[in-house]
């Protein structure tokens, strides 16, 4: 039976020409072609022209290097303005939320005088070993603070060093402009405009950028120098599915975070005994747990909510969700 949706003229049978008599011509033809390639490669110039199929094609890596295209993405880096020394990152947590392997950990800076949060990052830890360079953080960042680097020679012997913290992530804008000129020129003026009004909202000597670095002076040493002295005082890195906790976070914040995580694990342990089928998934969503402390996202289909969101914002989100469900008439 011929099962074929296709009109006959669309199909052609590959000819096997079993019958014809081959007295070694097939092999000699093959040998001839390989010899021609050999001659062209031996005497021909090494070539990388895309239209050509002869001559040597490989590049002697350490000496000669291929030019990386602008859009090339390896590991993310953060940008700071050469002139004012201010970082573009305002710790808005967008990148932390979108990151598929959840490798970004940001802590918001606080105004030392008033204690209120300020649009700047106190610490920004990125686990280079788990990051898969998908480029989502760069796409999603509203302030063009995080961009994808072109440096792929990152192999290192000591593993903790791959939890890259704020100082080693920062690069001057001139560095990024050099490696991706057109991409930066597209977003340049709106990034600079946002930076200006962010600086206005950063009162006085706030955040880590003032004073730490001479303005526009020595850029952060690019070489991955291990962070001197700040041994990971906090609890050993819980390696399981829970994202690692940054080394430089103040102790009590780490303790609070661990307690929340423990609660989640207990909650989740009980919660997903029976994976509810679609029909009655809705009721689980209904009984959203009220207290923010145990606000672990129920293991059901609701997206994971960032741990660091302020309480009122979380309540507002629940309200919107409830309204949506009511409107949908479950």
């Amino acid at each position: 039976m011929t099962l074929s949706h296709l009109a006959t003229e669309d199909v052609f049978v590959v000819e096997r020409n079993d019958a014809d008599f081959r007295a070694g011509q097939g092999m000699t033809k093959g040998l001839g072609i390989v010899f021609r390639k050999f001659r062209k490669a031996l005497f021909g110039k090494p070539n990388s022209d895309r239209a050509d199929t002869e001559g040597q094609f490989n590049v002697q890596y350490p000496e000669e290097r291929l030019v990386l295209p602008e859009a090339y993405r390896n590991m993310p880096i953060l940008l700071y303005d050469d002139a004012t020394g201010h970082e573009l990152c305002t710790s808005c947590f967008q990148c932390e939320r979108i990151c598929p392997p959840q490798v970004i950990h940001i802590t918001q800076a606080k105004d030392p005088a008033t204690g209120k949060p300020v649009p700047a990052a106190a610490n920004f830890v990125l686990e280079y070993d788990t990051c898969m360079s998908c480029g989502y953080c760069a796409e999603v960042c509203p302030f063009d603070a995080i961009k994808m680097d072109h440096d792929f020679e990152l192999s290192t012997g000591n593993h903790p060093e791959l939890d890259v913290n704020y100082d080693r992530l920062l690069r001057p804008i001139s560095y990024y402009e050099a490696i991706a000129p057109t991409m930066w020129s597209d977003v340049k003026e709106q990034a600079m405009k946002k930076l200006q009004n962010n600086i206005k909202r950063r009162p006085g000597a706030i955040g880590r950028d003032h004073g730490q670095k001479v303005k526009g002076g020595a850029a952060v040493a690019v070489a991955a120098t291990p962070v001197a002295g700040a041994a990971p005082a906090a609890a050993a890195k819980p390696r399981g599915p829970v994202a690692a906790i940054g080394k430089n976070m103040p102790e009590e914040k780490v303790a609070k975070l661990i307690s929340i995580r423990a609660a989640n694990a207990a909650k989740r342990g009980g919660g997903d005994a029976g994976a509810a089928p679609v029909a009655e998934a809705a009721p689980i969503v209904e009984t959203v747990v009220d207290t923010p402390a145990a606000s672990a996202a129920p293991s059901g289909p609701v997206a994971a909510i960032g741990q660091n969101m302020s309480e009122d914002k979380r309540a507002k989100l629940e309200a919107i969700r409830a309204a949506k469900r009511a409107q949908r008439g479950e």
Partner: protein
Amino acid sequence: MLKTEELQINIGPQHPSTHGVFRMLVTVDGETLVDLKPVFGYLHRNHEQLGEVNTYLQNMPFTDRLDYFNSMVNNHAYARAVETLAGVEVPERAQYIRVIMDELSRILNHATAMGFMLGDMGAWQTALLWGMREREKILDMFEYVSGARMMCNYCRFGGVVRDIDDWFITELKKLMQGLPHYFDDFEGLLLNSEILLARARNIGVLPKELALAYSVTGPVLRGSGVAYDIRKAEPYAVYDRFKFKVPVGTVGDVYDRFLVRIAEMRESYKILEQAIEQLPDATGGFINPKVKQQSLKAPAGEAYARVESPKGELGFYLVSDGSGSAYRYKVRAPSFINLSSLADMCKGYSIADVVVILGSIDIVMGEVDR
């Protein structure tokens, strides 16, 4: 006189020619193979569970890791599934770009797949390295346009990440000048070589009825004589605007699959030529602006979208419950289903043929184990 009893041999997970981590428990009587039990799962990465935890957009880079030779095709299939689920329409230019990327990916996949099979046969990788050279050229262009060579993460819901500019088009035209020479060299090298004929003809025969029974798809099915190609049977993404043919085998042995793949490369070349001519200009936009990628919410319901990947019918089945991530996410991987026919295809042949037959099915373990 000479009593031969059956021998259990493990063509083990780390054997040089098992295309990734895959084990075959082979029972052999003398030289002929009596029974073969495939064992896989070594590369299982919990892909479908991840699909349920991640939001739709977060899941896109993970689809690159399914069939890591054709990440463009995987992205395209996943994007189509979410687009049908969420009812997003894709601008013309983006569909053309996606078709160009799929056909380029088909050429590089067949070039390397045939190279690996010939390497298993003992041809010392000459064909493979010529195939790799063409693949490198194509990967450079993927890198230019998507940012990475193999893990492209190029499609978004309603279009693509970045538009292709005229540097890409000129390079594509240059590549198109070189490809016919490569096809001729490849065919001249081995197509009629007596030893290849001796090793490939009438080996691993999969008759038409059995191919349908096993629901194999792609070059394996077409090699057995069934003319079924999704680009023709259910045209998606502007494929109905191109004139191209579907190659079909007669006997369904290793040699037929080899011929079908080479013919398919030439057909993809024709599609690329037509796609470059008909490419709409940039005003059409390369992505549908109205779609909020991060927080895309799909209405409750289910959708199944399928694409003719170089290995067969690659399908994504999504069930949504209205939230930001899928409730059930299932991948119909062509390699997994084609592999199920391996055991019966190899019965009666010798051990040396098993490796060649496996090469002719062209599997990638990332897709099989998910």
